[in-house]
């Protein structure tokens, strides 16, 4: 078995939402809300998920293109401060094995009339995926979060 080279990268994405930190935080902590927005692309679906939102709890989803989901994200919540901070760590895999391991930090700050959300993901990529692809995925996901928060 030959391991591919591991590529380490860090991405930071900031978004401003016109609602309170409590509302943005709730979109992450409420499992039903989370299943509505936390998948990239309108033609992708979450086939299975588990959002056990507490320190030590599991964050899992099996997702992908409608009819053929093939990705699984499996992680653990490591730190939660209501309305302020979420830290989680885990892996993303496809049917061939792990593609990446990541440490993700989500910070929520009250700013102006709304909230500044800063998402930082520190990753070890073990397959073909790159940080640029990961940014593209999160950009689509956060577009959906924005729609969720307007509802």
């Amino acid at each position: 078995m030959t391991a591919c080279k591991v590529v380490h990268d860090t991405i930071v994405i900031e978004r401003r939402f016109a609602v309170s930190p409590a509302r943005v935080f709730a979109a992450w902590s409420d499992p039903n809300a989370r299943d509505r927005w936390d998948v990239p692309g309108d033609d992708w679906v979450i086939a299975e998920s588990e959002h056990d939102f507490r320190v030590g709890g599991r964050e899992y989803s099996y997702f992908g293109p409608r009819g053929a989901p093939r990705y699984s994200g499996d992680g653990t919540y490591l730190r939660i401060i209501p309305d302020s901070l979420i830290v989680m760590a885990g892996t993303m895999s496809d049917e061939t094995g792990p593609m990446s391991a990541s440490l993700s930090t989500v910070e929520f700050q009250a700013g102006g009339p709304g909230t500044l959300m800063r998402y930082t993901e520190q990753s070890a990529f073990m397959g073909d995926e790159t940080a640029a692809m990961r940014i593209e995925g999160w950009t689509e996901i956060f577009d959906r979060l924005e729609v969720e928060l307007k509802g």
Partner: protein
Amino acid sequence: MSNRSVTHSTFVIERRFDASPARVFNAFADPQAKARWFSGPPEWGPDISEMDFRVGGRETNRGGAPGGPVHSFDATYQDIVPNERIVFTYDMHLDDVRISVSLTTIELTPDAGGTRLKFTEQGAFLDAFDKPALREEGTKGLLDALEASLKPDH
């Protein structure tokens, strides 16, 4: 609750050891071999540790100076390729305060009868209880101890 902060930092340490990748890997995978180098300073006395070296398995290690705060290391193994790669996430507590969460990747490459080790740590340091530079120093000290544990007479 006003002093909340997160500092993200990545450091990389590269070392070469006069031991095969299999021996270096074993120093991470075998609880007894790991205990020879992965511990606090001698004045801390013995650590309390447990490890379950498989993907999804956990490792804990607790220790500290007498009368001082307990340092707790709690890790979960995320990926293991024998003799080549270990990826784990871990958090550090001082008593009940979580001071950091990190993603660590260890890569081993054969190098002319020895092994090159690349240690990459991507950390989130919480509320300024610890600094990336101190963690890097501490990690270098641990890798020095690892090197000593790999010497033939050890």
